[in-house]
């Protein structure tokens, strides 16, 4: 789970021994930005996965990106989702039109028709991805 164990006390510097003048900014201290808070809305249903491949490159998901997946969300049209298809996890964009489709974002777009897949289980909606440059 996403714990705050390594998260340092934001006010620790206030407890440091200060000699001389007190900092004029002391009364304006705020918590530093917390990445967990930014990226994870519901910790208990959020899982991380590592993306392998170039199929989703045009959506900004590079090879080796870390996907943040919230299983509590219901996908809507054009969401990026993770699903298991015939025993394997795939990350794709979902299209709700006259047919339910999964599309990749690369140029040789391979389209999958969900109703024709025997073993399809939705895992969750990808809410963000982390790419390292």
């Amino acid at each position, binding site marked *: 789970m996403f714990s705050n164990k390594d998260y340092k006390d934001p006010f620790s510097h206030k407890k440091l021994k200060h000699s001389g003048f007190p900092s004029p900014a002391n009364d304006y201290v705020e918590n530093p930005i917390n990445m967990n808070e930014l990226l994870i809305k519901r910790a208990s*249903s959020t899982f991380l*996965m*590592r993306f392998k491949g170039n199929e989703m490159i045009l959506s900004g998901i590079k090879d080796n990106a870390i996907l943040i997946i919230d*299983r509590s969300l219901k996908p809507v049209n054009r969401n990026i989702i993770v699903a*298991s298809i015939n025993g*394997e*996890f795939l*990350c794709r964009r979902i299209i709700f039109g006259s047919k339910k489709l999964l599309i990749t974002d690369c140029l040789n777009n391979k389209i999958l028709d969900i109703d024709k897949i025997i073993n399809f289980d939705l895992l969750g909606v990808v809410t963000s991805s982390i790419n390292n440059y």
Partner: protein
Amino acid sequence: MFALIDCNSFYASCEKIFRPDLKNRPVVVLSNNDGCVIARSTEAKKMGVSMTQPWYQVKDDYLSNGGIVFSSNYEFYADISNRVMNVLTELCPEIDIYSIDEAFLDLRSFKKNIDLVSFAYECRRKIKEWIGIPVSIGIAPTKTLAKLANKVAKDDPRFDGVVILSEPRIIRHFLKSMPVDKIWGVGRRLTARLSEIGIKTAFDLSQINPRLIGENFNVVLERTVRELKGQSCITLHDFMEPKKQIMVSRSFGKGVRAKNILSEAISFHASRASEKLRYEHQKCRLMTVFIRSNRFNTRIKQIYASRSLEMIHPTDDTRVIIKNANRILDLIFMEGYQYSKAGILLSDFTDSFGYQMSLFDRRKCDKTSSKLMKTVDYINLMEIAKIGFGNQGYRNTWKMKREIKSKRYTTKISEIPLVK
């Protein structure tokens, strides 16, 4: 009303979350050291694998029929358990976590007209969809009844995982179909005694005057009877009675012949046991050490050796316990056997706040001892490093095997699942 939520085949279900290829396949999880089966998926149950069966007995048959096996991966199970409990807490803040895969919800704070059926199915759906774990739910006026309802919800597929007992007429009918040994806290011995006086079903038991049961059996069973009658009297506090004894034992990965390795293992177990003892604020007067061969292996010479030692001063000092445990080992160890398990049992407790001093008062030495033990426990609490005592050894050749462990999918960034 109380609800008991219980995860179905919890460890096996965890193993399936990130392995879609294992859907509908038999999965079992083994105990520490890969000794015996401690969790079975529905498919594995159908193959006839039973609980706590030694692994090597079923191994060949099970694997050749396509079964999948895992060593226990407690880091992963604990994380999934936390997630389940967090979702339940969102649904009902009055929660008692009873074990890694079970929790009671106190629904008495809910509005009178709440639809329990749709509440139960909402719990079930959310835990399945959000985390991937199937659960069974029993709802009833008391915890004992909720536990019984849960058992039926789990075992009888007609109920689709939810059993709610609310009307007295239905509860009566339900209890009549329940053998007495299915009741929470009624073990084999008690079942035999009850059977002698003609009590066969849960309904029979519920018809008896609880006071009579209290006088002839014990308070715990008296409370059970009251609970069967629909009178709620078990609180969370009741689960936490102080322990009467502490046992730490482990099987070895491979058979062990050398005494120094046995001594390392015994010392390690002794130090774990004394930590537990201090955690309970108890001191022990009696300790038992045992070593044994693998009783399932018929090809080797069998041995079971154990001896107890009574100490003059009750103690919780790791050094004293390790020293005495090794004295016992000296007495019981015999050359020429292959040992497969060693353990220590601490008992005869007095709580560490007030015990009778013996004639030779050792209070002074006791003070430094408790100070040292506190420091040791404190350092070991911080996960950076562990300190131990000389003879615990660092080679740990006898440590757990856990050969076929799955990844720590949710707690280690280098082990998160892959997706294409």
